[in-house]
Every structure is written in structure tokens, then in C-alpha cells.
């Protein structure tokens, strides 16, 4: 019976979006071009006006030294740090959404960022070195992940309500611990520590940890894309389709925690990027993780670069924490998704 209808259905279906396949590279190319454009925008906008001619002359022999410093020393590293951080958070969000089969998952909402911040802050208060701070942030994020996933799962399934309640309670707990640490911490370090509560790229030191972790994540996760697509149908279905579910779940746990902790160490706890970006991308590109994961890296990076341009310039010379901007974007998105999920 299929034979007779075959030509017709094949012809009609050629219009239908085929997952992955031919769409991955063109889509990623478009997103890469957008990323470069947002980075260029970040280089050209700031509280000090640098004319386009100044930008073009940057690499010439008679470049204005002030413009060189502003663009190359201030804007470029900060834009790259924003890009790396945004990409990490978006990929971490996309991963958690697959694992929980729930588009509401986000490293900030579910308390991973809070755990990483507590880990990093605790290590800093103890006067530990940079490596210990990073390690401690990772452990903090991982503890959060295991807590949320373990508790929310319980004996039943991951219902959105149960998941969100667990995540929100864990996140609130970390918030309290951070506040406690800020209270007992030395007064003279307090102002520089508030960004652990509301992420801020003004404190970002180097973009390279975030950027290299983002590149590494894309490489490591690339071969897992299709398995993640299958895992999104639930662990039982995935197992019957040949996925080694437990190892894959742990890989995702560790990856989401690692990515979140590097993002948090770079710029504090920035919320909602991991929620907004994968959601928007799924609306445009569908849910194939082979496209969504690298696309999240690019689009998440671009989004945070744009948000940080706003943070730097909206009220200049007063500077906003970028977390305020992402929250203003993210909270309505979150509420909309929650409303729709009923």
C-alpha cells in the first residue's frame, strides 16, 4: 500500500525539514556570521565614542592610542569573556533540558550556578589558590546537579513542578549560603564579591578559560548529539535504542556542572541565558541536538555579548550588572514556558 503513495509522499515530504543533515552547516554558518557581527558591535559601542574611522584605523600605523586601548584592551577581552560565558551557559542549559526532558531547565534556575558560586566563594574565603577555587566551584555545581536530579526524581518521574520546586529550593539555599559567606567574609572584600549573586562581566579577568572550555565542550559533545536526541525520549526508550544511558547521563551531569562552574568563575551567576537561548533555537531549528548544541554555543555567546553592551552603555557612566539584563529577558520567557507547559 505504501508503494502507490510513495512518489506523492516523498515529493511532499521533500519540503519537510529533515533533521540534521543538510541544515546543520548552513545554520551554523549563519549563526557564526551573527556572532562575528555582535562581537564587532561590542567593539564599536561603549561609553566612549569611537568613530568608525577610528575602528578601521586601529591596526594602521597612525591609530589613536586611546582608541587602541579602549577597543583592544577593554572591549575585546570583555566581549570575548561575554561570548564564552554566554555560550557555556546556553550549552549547559540545552544539556540539562535534554536530560530532564524539560525546556524549563536552566543552570541558574536549578541552582547549579549557585552551587558553583558557593564553591568558588568558599575556597576564596579560605584563601585557596586559583586551581582550588575552580575545582571547588565545579564540585559545588556538581553537588547541586546531583541534589536536584536525585531529589526531583525520587521514585516517580521528573514532573515539571517537582523539578522546579527542587531546583528553586536548592538555588534559594545556595543564595542563603552566599549571603552568609558575604556576612562573615572580610568587610574590605565585600564590594568585589557581590557579583557572585548577580553576574557581572565587569569583573571578568580573562576570556580564555571560558572560550577554551566552550570549544572543548563543542568537540566532546559533537559525537554525542544523536545519542542525546534519543535520550530526550526517556531513559528506557534510549536504552532500547542502544544508548548506554547511565554513562551518557553522567557525562551530561559532569559537562553541565563543568560548563556552569567555568561560566560562574568568569562572571558570577548570570541567569536565564541557558533557558532563553535553547528555547529560541528550538523554535527556529527544531530539537536536533547535533544542531542545537553548537548553535547554543554561538547564539548564547552572541546574546550575552549583546546584553553586556546594554549593561555597559544603557546608563553610562553608571554600569549595570549584566545579570540584570539577562533576567529581564529571561523571566518573561520562563513564565511563558511555564504557562504553556500546563
Amino acid at each position: 500500500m505504501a508503494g502507490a503513495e510513495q512518489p506523492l509522499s516523498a515529493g511532499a515530504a521533500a519540503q519537510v525539514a529533515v533533521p540534521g543533515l543538510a541544515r546543520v552547516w548552513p545554520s551554523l554558518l549563519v549563526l557564526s556570521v551573527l556572532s562575528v557581527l555582535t562581537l564587532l558591535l561590542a567593539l564599536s559601542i561603549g561609553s566612549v565614542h569611537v568613530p568608525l574611522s577610528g575602528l578601521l584605523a586601529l591596526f594602521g600605523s597612525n591609530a589613536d592610542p586611546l582608541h587602541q586601548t579602549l577597543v583592544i584592551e577593554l572591549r575585546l577581552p570583555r566581549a570575548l569573556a561575554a561570548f564564552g560565558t554566554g555560550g557555556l551557559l546556553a550549552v549547559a542549559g540545552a544539556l540539562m533540558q535534554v536530560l530532564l526532558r524539560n525546556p524549563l531547565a536552566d543552570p541558574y534556575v536549578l541552582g547549579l550556578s549557585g552551587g558553583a558560586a558557593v564553591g568558588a566563594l568558599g575556597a576564596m574565603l579560605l584563601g585557596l589558590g586559583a586551581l582550588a577555587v575552580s575545582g571547588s566551584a565545579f564540585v559545588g555545581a556538581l553537588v547541586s546537579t546531583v541534589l536536584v536530579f536525585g531529589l526531583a526524581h525520587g521514585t516517580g518521574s521528573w514532573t515539571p513542578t517537582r523539578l522546579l520546586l527542587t531546583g528553586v529550593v536548592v538555588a534559594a539555599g545556595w543564595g542563603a549560603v552566599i549571603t552568609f559567606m558575604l556576612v562573615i567574609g572580610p568587610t574590605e572584600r565585600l564590594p568585589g564579591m557581590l557579583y557572585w549573586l548577580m553576574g557581572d562581566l565587569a569583573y571578568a579577568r580573562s576570556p580564555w578559560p571560558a572560550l577554551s572550555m566552550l570549544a572543548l565542550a563543542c568537540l566532546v559533545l559533537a559525537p554525542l548529539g544523536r545519542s542525546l536526541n534519543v535520550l530526550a525520549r526517556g531513559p528506557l526508550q534510549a536504552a532500547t535504542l542502544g544508548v548506554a544511558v547511565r554513562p551518557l547521563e553522567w557525562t551530561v551531569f559532569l559537562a553541565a556542572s563543568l560548563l556552569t562552574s567555568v561560566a560562574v568563575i568568569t562572571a558570577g551567576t548570570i541567569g536565564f541565558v541557558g533557558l532563553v537561548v535553547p528555547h529560541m533555537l528550538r523554535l527556529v531549528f527544531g530539537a536536533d541536538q547535533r544542531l542545537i548544541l553548537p548553535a547554543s554555543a554561538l547564539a548564547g555567546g552572541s546574546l550575552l555579548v549583546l546584553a553586556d553592551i546594554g549593561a555597559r552603555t544603557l546608563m553610562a557612566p553608571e554600569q549595570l550588572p549584566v545579570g540584570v539584563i539577562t533576567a529581564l529577558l529571561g523571566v518573561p520567557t520562563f513564565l511563558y514556558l511555564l504557562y504553556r507547559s500546563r
Partner: protein
Amino acid sequence: MGIADRRNAVRVAGTPTLLVGVLLLLGVVGVQAEDRFCVTDDRQREVCLSQPAERIIALSPGVTELLFAAGAGDRISGAVRYSDYPEAANDLPRVGNHTRVDMETVLAMEPDLIVAWVSGNPAEQLERLEQLGLTVYYSEVRDFEDVAASIRRFGRLAGTSAEAEQAAAGFTADISRLEQTYGDRDPVRLFYQIWDDPLMTINDTHLISQIIGLCGGENVFGDLDRMVPRLDRESVLAARPEAIAAGGMGEGNESWLEPWKQFDQLPATGRGNLFFVPPSTIQRPTPRVIEGAEILCEHLEAARGRR
């Protein structure tokens, strides 16, 4: 990817050495090393300029006041929000607030000296400014000697030593005058309230506590570990202070004293020893603390008269 190694990583992003060169070119050519203006800042680092500072950026309201006191007010190019004293400070161009400095605006001012506030400004941003080749003086004023010393150092860096010396000497003289007048009087046990909700006080390491000592008072919470402890009202009632002094939201707002009036059994309340001190005169570590100290000393003297 930790905090310490980032410093090196950042250098990859640009050419800080180039900038150092550029800044040195700004009229510094030919100056001999022995002509340099050097001071030691509050982090015990040596800060040197090749010629007196002409474009200073002050990253706290207190630093702005100290610079004006040192006669360097007209050398300030930029200041942070709330820099409101003296009057002229209100007109200074702004470079953000002390917790988040607008780096671009700072750089665009091409400052030759940045005076930072150790416990107020984010360390990451100050590091960045240094990496960009700017000269940063780290200020952390904790006692009367620091106030006088800071004024002298700012005078030296700005080339206004004569005026600064006069201001510093005047300040020191005022302090000793107050100390001689009040220091040995009968101690008055005082609770000093610097914030209302939550209730906050200061311990003996804070400048305000030193002012209390100067006036012959005794800070009832001076022994607490934290410099700015948070309290509840009960612990204040239990400490039974003989006097309570408080600032307020604004220079004439005495509303923070109101809640204490219900506790008649408290010695401070019973004797009418609830005193207002205008916060700007005592909470910034600047020469203006003389004003606040005089007010507080007179209050404590009044308290002694009500025994």
C-alpha cells in the same frame, strides 16, 4: 583557569606595554629618576609619578574629600557617584560608582593618577587598570594618622605639598586638642548606630570608635570581631549603654533615634542621652571628622552632666 593565572592570560589579548609607552610620552620625556614623586600607599606599595599629577581620578567620595583637603581638588578629572563634598565635587565628571567603575570613561580621561579605595572598589577592575599601565594609589584610611598621612601623600603626588602639609598639621592639631580636652574625662558607655535596618554598629578598629575614644567615650560593642557587626535591639538593651548616638538617612533626619525612646529603663533613654550626629561628618575618613568629633564630644559631655 583560576584567578591568579588570568592576569597573564589577559596580556595575550592586547599590548599593555605599548600603552605604558604612550602614557610615558605624555610630557614625561627627559625626567630624571631622582626627580620622581614617590609615596607609599596603604597597601605598602611604592607609587611614583614623574611629574605632579594633573588628571586624578578619585574612586571614592572620601578620597575626593582628602584630595580637596590636600589642595589637589582642581587636579581631579573624574569622581564616582556620591562625591558631594566640598561643593565643587558635585560638578566633577562621573566615572560610575565605587562598586562598578566605568573603565572606558576612566581611560578616556587619560588620568596620570588613580586613587582607589581598597575596601570599596572591585579588585578585578583595579588590577585591570594597572595592567593597562595606569598608576593606581590604593587608599584605605583606618585612623587619624592615616588621614593626615594620606593628605600629605596626595599633596606630594599632586605637587601641592605646602597646602597639604598645612591641612594635615591642622587636622593633627585639632585631634590632639580634642583629645586633651575630652580624652581623660570619665568614660561614657556609648552605643553608636551607623545603620537602622538592619541595626548595625562598629567595633574598635573603625575610625568612629577611635573618635568615641577621643571624646572619652567607650564603645559598648568595641570588642566584637567584625568591623561592622549586625545586631538586634535586645543585645543593645542588654549592653545598657549610657548614651546612644546615631546618624540617619540624610543630614537632619533623627528618625533612627525614635525606636529607643520606648525603652525608659535603658540608661541612655532614661537620661535623655539619645544623640544625633550628621553621618557625613563622621562616617567618611576625612578631615571633616573633626566636625563630627566635636559634635560627639559635646554630646558625651552633656551625658556626663546628666549623671
